[in-house]
């Protein structure tokens, strides 16, 4: 007899709660937008924010509410996600060239000169705020890895003081491009294989003094390019990836050897055009020249 009352009591409380919840669920259910749910299923769920919304749910809700928003803004999802969303919404998927982040600086440790031994907060943003950073080149990679910290995919690491993107892991969410206080990281199409390893806006003379891997703005690449794809802007060469045919003529013409061509097939076992060897190459050349 002693056990019946408590068991009954707890069961009754449980049943009352269950009935209450069921009724509440039934009468106060909020109609969920089916489109948003379907769109959400197309997205990878990484919540990286690369699309400019607060997360995958937010992007899906925005898409469902406003059909004018482009369905191709999810970089991790790429063409699959865009096609899926386009199918749900019945719109055109748009341009979904797979992209990859690339660091436009190869001024590794020992390649560029330093102004100081910086000992403050070890973030690039803090170092940048202190006289423009520890390096003499005020445009180069600071190397504290603000980009590494924001990358959710472990695709960036700092090698020899310069950030390097592992293009196998990069999903082109663009978080690093926003985190870099020097704005050195840009999203480029995965098909683009020629890149300039410098973003210095200093004049050629100064760049030559402070860094062995700096663009001096000599425009030899401009003359070598048959497609008008490379231009010297703000004292450094910039490649227009829409026009570039990846022929590599500019790389051959560059006297500073800072235009790099990524091999067509990844070098087995691991494609690693790390800044370290790339940056050391011109140094060796320089030594020979002297």
């Amino acid at each position, binding site marked *: 007899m002693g056990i019946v009352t408590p068991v009954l009591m*707890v069961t009754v409380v449980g049943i009352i709660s269950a009935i209450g919840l069921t009724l509440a669920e039934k009468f106060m259910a909020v109609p969920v937008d089916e489109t948003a749910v379907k769109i959400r299923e197309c997205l990878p769920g990484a919540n990286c924010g690369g699309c400019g919304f607060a997360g995958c749910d937010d992007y899906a809700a925005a898409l469902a509410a406003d059909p004018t928003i482009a369905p191709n803004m999810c970089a991790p999802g790429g063409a699959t996600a865009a096609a899926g969303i386009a199918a749900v919404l019945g719109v055109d998927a748009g341009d979904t060239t797979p992209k990859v982040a690339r660091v436009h600086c190869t001024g590794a440790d020992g390649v560029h000169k330093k102004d100081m031994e910086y000992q403050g907060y070890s973030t690039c943003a803090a170092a940048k705020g202190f006289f423009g950073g520890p390096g003499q080149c005020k445009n180069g990679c600071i190397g504290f890895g603000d980009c590494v910290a924001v990358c959710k995919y472990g695709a960036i690491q700092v090698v020899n003081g310069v950030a390097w993107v592992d293009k196998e892991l990069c999903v082109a969410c663009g978080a690093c491009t926003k985190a870099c206080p020097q704005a050195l990281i840009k999203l480029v199409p995965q098909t683009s294989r020629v890149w300039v390893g410098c973003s210095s806006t200093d004049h050629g003379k100064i760049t030559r003094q402070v860094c062995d891997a700096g663009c001096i703005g000599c425009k030899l690449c401009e003359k070598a390019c048959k497609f008008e794809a490379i231009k010297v802007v703000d004292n450094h060469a910039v490649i227009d990836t829409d026009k570039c045919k990846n022929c590599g003529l500019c790389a051959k013409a560059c006297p500073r050897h800072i235009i790099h061509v990524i091999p067509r097939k990844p070098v087995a076992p691991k494609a690693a055009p790390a800044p370290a060897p790339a940056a050391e190459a011109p140094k060796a050349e320089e030594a020979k020249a002297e």
Partner: protein
Amino acid sequence: MMELVKIIFAAVLVNNCVLVQFLGICPFLGVSKKMDSAVGMSLAVTFVMALATAATWPIQYFLLDPNGIGYLQTIVFILVIAALVQLVEIILKKYMPSLHKSLGVYLPLITTNCAVLGVCINNITDGYGFVASIMNSVGTGLGFLLAMVIFSGVRQRIEHNNIPESFKGVPITLIAASVLALAFMGFSGVIDGIFGA
């Protein structure tokens, strides 16, 4: 009236639920990284605490005690609180979408938070009346808010410091929490000082 003010002060400072009673450590460590989420979480906890007390106090005195099954307190309270929080979530979703959006993430988290259960049980063990129980719950919630706000501030300072590699992350957070708990030890006896014994 004085009694109620005293209860609130005691709950916020002297018997701070996180730093003195060590209840609700999970959200204290988990959600204190950012100030705004810490405040959101604390407000949700305060709200649920008051609500849970309002539901569990009558259950204890009108259902459990008359039937002589006070020992079922814990299990019945958990059941009722969990159902209650779910109900609140459904209601909020329907009628206050904006509040649901700001509290929504935290509500399921505190369904079975031990601080909520703890304050309900403490109200019974301390023999508070209904109004005093509600006051105690609100005070405990505010104490939780205070601890969360202080600690999220501390953590933001920690983040920008050079910490030895082996202390990075959870270890330094726990050390900071223990120092903060030690600091709150200083409040013991303060109520008698303010309001007279």
